[in-house]
């Protein structure tokens, strides 16, 4: 079967009445679950698996794909409104989304996120369709040294994520990196810094750190400011209006980050989180007014939202073309495939073209559904911010608690959440930025593992990092990206 024919079959499957219905159900349920505390795409897909049992494979998978990107989008809502990122891919969204919502522009922020997601999603699906088979080789081109280079490049963002003192940003990052070394080391099985406590064996969960440093710490600030109403214009909270000026601002980041996000998403293990951070930093570096970033910049919100959705489609490349699940989420999705009797792998496209292309076609549809369903809901969702401060504070605390509890089911993690909440609050007071902490926490683990895997493979020879052209390029880029801002700083002072 030629691929044109396959694509046609796929579109027929997806655009049938049944297909459209299940995409809608999937997107709706996914968005909704994604908005719930602590539940990201992984849980959304896991809880939907039993429901697909016995369904026709293509319809079941089309629905699951809907659940997947619905949940990714739903996750950004809590980042923007409550500064409570539910999944790592939306941490960068909160950097500018939350300040924007605090300025009384919650509706606008959510609308920008929806449009950016839509664009990132749609562009990347086109890329996926044209290049999925060809990209299979890209997906496996990254060995451990190349991953090391990529993580290093991501880490150089620390300097640009600081507000003021670079020293403090670096300290914040080092402590974040230290936090991720807690747990059983995958390479040796050695327990590190666990104090023999079984709760720490698998390390501290990302969500505990993110909700602690961001949401709970923010609660502290809200408590102090609970009497004064910082929201200048309450009535416009739900307004979706985006000015021409703002649309113009969005255009650049959207067109660039759709591509960057997609290609990073293709790499197994890299995915939406790294795409969103790299997207954010890249836009900040080339922006004319980088000082606006972190204070509610349109570009700063558009970049990570475009990138993380583009990466979501990108992640389907290794899954569909090679059967490699590149992340926890796609691993669960792989499980969903198996339940439906579909084995994703190199032969899927040849043997079950209707499923392969059906999923891809359903993504077009899903992106449209996502936009159409969510835009009208935004005015209502953003009214959450009109809830009186004292009540909102109590609800945010509860939201964070249940979020952490729903993934670990242990009160130990809840105590850790409070601990990181207090730490995050103190960091604010003493002007230590939190983003470098969380960035180092996310990237540090992979950086260390790929570093040690590489050296294990090379029997301790450091040349392995310079021998592969990909890692060499990435390392050079990292060095430049780290030194450049410092030089700029020097110049300014002189």
């Amino acid at each position, binding site marked *: 079967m030629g691929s044109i024919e396959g694509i046609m079959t796929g579109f027929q499957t997806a655009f049938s009445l049944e297909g459209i219905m299940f995409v809608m159900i999937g997107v709706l349920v996914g968005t909704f*679950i994604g908005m*719930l505390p602590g*539940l990201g795409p992984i*849980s959304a897909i896991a*809880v939907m698996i*039993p429901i697909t049992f016995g369904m026709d494979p293509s319809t079941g998978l089309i629905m699951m794909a809907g659940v997947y990107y619905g949940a990714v989008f739903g996750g950004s809502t809590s980042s923007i409104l409550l500064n409570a990122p539910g999944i790592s891919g939306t941490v960068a969204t909160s950097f500018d989304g939350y300040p924007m919502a605090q300025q009384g522009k919650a509706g606008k922020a959510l609308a920008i996120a929806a449009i950016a997601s839509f664009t990132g999603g749609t562009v990347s699906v086109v890329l996926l369709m044209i290049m999925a088979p060809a990209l299979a080789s890209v997906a496996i081109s990254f060995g451990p040294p190349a991953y090391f280079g990529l993580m290093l490049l991501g880490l150089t963002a620390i300097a640009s994520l600081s507000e*003021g*003192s670079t*020293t*403090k940003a*670096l*300290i914040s990052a*080092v*402590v974040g*990196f*230290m936090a991720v*070394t807690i747990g059983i*080391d995958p*390479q*040796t*099985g*050695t327990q*590190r*810094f666990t104090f023999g406590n079984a709760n720490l064996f698998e390390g501290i969960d990302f969500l505990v750190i993110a909700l602690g440093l961001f949401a709970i710490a923010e*609660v*502290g600030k809200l*408590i*102090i400011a*609970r009497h004064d109403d910082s929201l200048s214009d309450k009535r416009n909270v739900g307004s979706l209006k985006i000015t021409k000026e703002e649309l113009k601002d969005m255009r650049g980041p959207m067109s660039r980050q759709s591509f960057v996000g997609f290609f990073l998403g293709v790499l197994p293990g890299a995915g939406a989180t790294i795409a969103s951070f790299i997207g954010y930093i890249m836009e900040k570096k080339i922006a004319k007014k980088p000082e606006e970033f972190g204070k509610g910049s349109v570009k700063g919100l558009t970049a990570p939202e475009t990138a993380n959705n583009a990466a979501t489609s990108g992640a389907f490349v290794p899954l569909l073309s090679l059967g490699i699940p590149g992340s926890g989420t796609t691993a669960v999705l792989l499980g969903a495939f198996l339940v439906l009797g579909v084995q994703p792998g190199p032969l899927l496209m040849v043997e079950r073209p209707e499923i392969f292309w059906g999923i891809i076609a359903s993504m077009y549809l899903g992106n449209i559904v996502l936009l159409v369903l969510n835009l009208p809901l935004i005015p209502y969702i953003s009214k959450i911010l009109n809830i*009186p*401060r*004292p*009540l909102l*504070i*109590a*609800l945010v*605390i*509860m939201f964070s*608690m*249940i979020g952490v*509890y*729903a993934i670990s*089911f242990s*009160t130990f993690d*809840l*105590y850790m959440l*409070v601990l990181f909440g*207090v730490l995050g609050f103190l960091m*604010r*007071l*003493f*002007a230590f930025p939190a983003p470098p902490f969380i960035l180092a926490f996310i990237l540090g683990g992979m950086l*260390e593992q790929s*570093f*040690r895997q590489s*050296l*294990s493979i*090379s*029997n*301790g020879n450091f040349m392995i990092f310079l021998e592969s052209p990909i890692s060499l390029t990435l390392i050079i880029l990292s060095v430049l990206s780290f030194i450049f801002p410092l030089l700029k700083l020097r110049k300014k002072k002189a």
Partner: protein
Amino acid sequence: MLRTMNRKISLILLALAAFYLVMTYNLPAYTYTEIDADMVPKGLGWLLVFLSIVLFFIKDSETEEQRERRNIPKKEIITLLAVTGMILLYIFLLEILGFVAVTALFVFFCSWFLGYKKFITNAIVSIVFPVVLYMLFTQFLRIELPQGILPF
């Protein structure tokens, strides 16, 4: 005063780094690998030592706004501590009394304590919200939350 603030933090960080390094140097060795589990942590520990020393000596670049953040009235500090206490109590009671009961009590008393005076709305919200969430999680999503003393 401010110079000493940086110095105080620097000393705390040095203590943290020292503690971390001591643990790192006591990690058991694993013989079958080129790079053992302690290499990266050692690097991190020493890096933190270095950065704390830098922090000790650099001139403070804090802006007036950042300094202002630390000016918290004593009354608010007590409020913060009280809320922290409530959260800890919430966690402690969660698996004993169950999700619905503790959450309802927490939402009600926490928002009341923070100055929300509409009792009826507060009571309705603090009961409806946990019940709806509980039902959603346990019935629809099949994720168990602590049931506690309530019969469902």
